[in-house]
Every structure is written in C-alpha cells, then in structure tokens.
C-alpha cells in the first residue's frame, strides 16, 4: 500500500491509477507514499515539502552552514542519484547543495534547496540536526514518484527512517527534532549545527498541524520545527506532487485517449481507439470531461 490518502486514509497499491482523479472515497488530492520498507511514522512527512527546499536552502545555509559544510559534501555524492539519496536522509539532501556548496557552510542549506524538488530538501535543512532530514529524505524521494525506486533505497541506506529517529536526539537542538528521528549517524553531526539556528523558526510551524506545515513548507522556507512535526504526521510521504499526477494523467491520455481536445473546437480523433471501445462518447465538454454511453444502454435504446 504505498499510497495513502492523507484525508481519509484509503490506501492504494503502488501503480494504482485510481487516485489520478482524486481519492474515490473522499475526493482528497493529497496522497502519501510509503515505501514498503519504510515505517509509517518515520519520515514521510518531509516529502510533502519538496518545494520548500529552495527556500530552505538559503535559510538553512545560513543557519547550519557550519556543521553541515562537511556533511553536505558527502550527501552530494550520494545524492547524485535519487535512489541513493533516499538511503541517507541527512547527508543525501546535502549532496546537491553540497555539490555546489559543498564548500561553504551553506552546503546544508544548499542541499536542501536542491532536494527541494523532491521534497526531501526540507528535511535536510531541518534535518541536519533533527534527522528529520533523514526521515524526510526517504519520503521525499518516494513522494516524487519515483516511488518505486526510492522506497528500496530508503530501506537500505542508512536505514533512513529508522536511523533518523534515533539519531537525532543529539542534533535535536529542537525538541521536535529529537522525537522524529533523524538519522543518527549522518544527521546528527551535520544537523546538529544547523538546526539550532533553524529551530527558532520551527516553533511557529510546529504549532500548525502537519498538513499546514507541509503546505507552508512547499511555498516557504522550511523551519526546523516544521520539519520534525511534519515528519511525525507522516505527511511527508504525501505525494502531493501534482506534477507527478499530471504526468501520469498525460501518460494515460496518450495510452487510452480516443479524442484529444487540442483547444475548444479543435479535436484529434483516434479512430481505431473509438472503434475498439465498447462504450462510446456521446457528449464532449471543453474541460476534457465527457459522457459515455455504455453498451447496455446503447442496445436498449437502439432497436426501438
């Protein structure tokens, strides 16, 4: 059940297309991805924030630059590949940033930014100390969708989730961080330094529910606290990534589309697809929706 609706908790098998148009049960559009290996609590939340990274990075850089400097570098290497990243939460995140910034203290932050795309980024920033990063990392990667791959990676590497939890305590400058996890090994060292600085910020975020935190994370810089909190909720996992869904939808369209709406009043038709389908489209709408007639209905009305 890698995918779970964050609203009602309904789960979806990996590769399921049911949720492409929202949760069938509650209509929710936020989903959480849980790699097979990952534990629920651990990490996932961080994932939610991918967007934030960029923002975070800057912030993080300032804050934790010191500690992170070294670590970042590592991450960079590892992170190079998404899958790998997941393995080590804290470090990995750093990588991107690290690659560039390895040098500077900012590295930690930098990493976050880079990660951000994935969502992991946030975690990094906070993570350093908190481990959240670690935890997040895994999740983030998953969330992004790569899902399949990432999960595995998470498990292996540092054991991302698990480690994270334990580790952080140290880093934990912030209380929250501690509980969440944090990958001990990696995270602690790095984060430790960084977090403190960030921690201050977090408080605010912390207050907010997980969802909120996630939301904010995306658009804003991640605060240390937020990350931890988020992590707990497991929101991180959420693959909110609408981009991902859009990409999947586009892929499905290419596979199954019988009528492509280029623009209002402009259509391309796949005759073979139209012919092969049992149901047929009887009403088009410009928003891409359509009404279909199923065979039974067709037969019934037809002969009259």
């Amino acid at each position, binding site marked *: 059940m890698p995918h779970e609706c964050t609203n009602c908790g309904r789960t979806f098998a990996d590769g399921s297309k049911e949720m492409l148009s929202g949760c069938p049960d509650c209509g929710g559009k936020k989903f959480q991805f849980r790699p097979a290996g990952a534990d629920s609590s651990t990490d996932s939340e961080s994932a939610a924030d991918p967007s934030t990274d960029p923002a975070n990075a800057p912030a993080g850089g300032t804050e934790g630059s010191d500690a992170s400097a070294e670590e970042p570098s590592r991450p960079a290497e590892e992170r190079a590949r998404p899958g790998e990243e997941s393995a080590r939460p804290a470090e990995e995140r750093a990588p991107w940033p690290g690659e560039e910034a390895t040098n500077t203290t900012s590295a930690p932050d930098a990493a976050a930014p880079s990660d951000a795309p994935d969502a992991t980024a946030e975690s990094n920033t906070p993570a350093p100390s908190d481990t959240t990063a670690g935890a997040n990392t895994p999740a983030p990667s998953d969330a992004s969708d790569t899902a399949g791959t990432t999960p595995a990676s998470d498990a292996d590497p540092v054991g991302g989730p698990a480690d994270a939890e334990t580790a952080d305590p140290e880093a934990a400058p912030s209380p929250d961080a501690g509980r969440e996890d944090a990958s001990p090994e990696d995270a602690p060292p790095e984060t430790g330094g960084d977090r403190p600085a960030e921690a201050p910020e977090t408080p605010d975020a912390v207050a907010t529910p997980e969802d909120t935190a996630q939301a904010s994370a995306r658009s804003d810089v991640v605060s240390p606290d937020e990350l931890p909190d988020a992590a707990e909720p497991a929101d991180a996992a959420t693959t909110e990534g609408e981009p991902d869904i859009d990409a999947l939808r586009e892929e499905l369209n290419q596979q199954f589309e019988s009528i492509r709406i280029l623009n209002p*009043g*402009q*259509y391309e*038709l796949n005759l073979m697809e139209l012919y092969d389908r049992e149901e*047929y489209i009887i009403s088009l709408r410009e928003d891409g929706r359509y009404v279909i007639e199923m065979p039974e209905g067709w037969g019934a009305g037809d002969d009259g």
Partner: protein
Amino acid sequence: MGLLTNLRESISGLFSESEPKRIGIYGPPNAGKTTLANRIARDWTGDAVGPESHIPHETRRARRKENVEIERNGKTVTIDIVDTPGVTTKVDYKEFLDHDMEKNDAVKRSREATEGVAEAMHWLREDVEGVIYVLDSTTDPFTQVNTMLIGIIESQDLPVLIFANKTDLEESDVKRIADAFPQHETVPLSALEGENMDEVYAKIAEYFG
C-alpha cells in the same frame, strides 16, 4: 435464440421478405453521404433522411431510415439506411468560419461533429451489417481515414460497396478510386443529379439482399 432466429429467417424466406439489414453509409466529410441517403429514401419511401449541406459535418448524428424497400430485377430488398457523420481524424472549428459561421457556432458544430464521429465508429462496430462507402470522386482517395475505415470494414467481414460520388463534376476520377480499392466493387454515381442510380440499386440488392 438460434432456433428462433433460424425460424424467423425461414419464414421470411417463405414470404420472400428478409429482415431489414442495417446498411451504414460511411465516408469522409462532404463526400455526399446524406445526399445519397436522401436520394435512396426519396426514391423508395418518399421521405428524406436529413438535411444536406455543402458545409462539412452537416450530419453530426447518425440518422436512420428504416424499412426502405428496394425492388430490383423482381427481387425486393429491405434495408435500414444509417446515414453517419463524416469520419475524420481532425475536426477544427476554423474550417467552419469560412462558411460565414460565428465562432461560437463553429465551435459547437465542431464538438458535435466529433461526437458524431465517435458515434459513427461505434455504430460500425456494433450495429451495421453492411457498408456503403461513399467517396468524393474529385478528391484523392488515398487518405488515412479511407484506408483505416476500409480496413476496419474488411476486418469485420462486412459486405461493402464503394460509391464514387459526384461524377457530375468535371474533376471526377472514378478510376482513381477503383484503383485505390481494387478488392472492392466501385460504383460511379451522382447522388445529387441521380446519375447511374439504376446500377446503384442493382448493386445494393445484390450485395445486401
């Protein structure tokens, strides 16, 4: 069901009257499908099937004229004529703007035409027992749509007649159509002018009787 069907067919045979076959009139837009359907319907029932127009996609819903009895050489063939929207792979409202149509109307017509194509393809799959494939003999028959549709029809093992319409026009080239689909019988005609309709009805009786 099989027994009942056989029984009904046997009885029909006794009365020299067979169950009407649904004959779909297919082809690209503006080939003259509705003009042909109206010609056949008027000749044998006195009623028309639907409005004709020089503007493409005038027919946007399949229309049926049932129980059209065609007598030929002492034999009576009863068919249901299904006039279908022109089949195409692209529908663009802009092509209607050239016909003094407002954009909103053109967009609406485009959408309906697209729905009509979907419907026509569905009928071809589910509801048609024979096909009259109408082509404008003044245009190139080697098109993706023609090739695809003829291929589908052949895959269904449906009896098919190819009508090379608009022979009243100078540019008409019936041979080009016959050469394009040599595996099928091509019948030249002008549905508009009523040219060669005797042969048309003879072939209908022969193929769909």
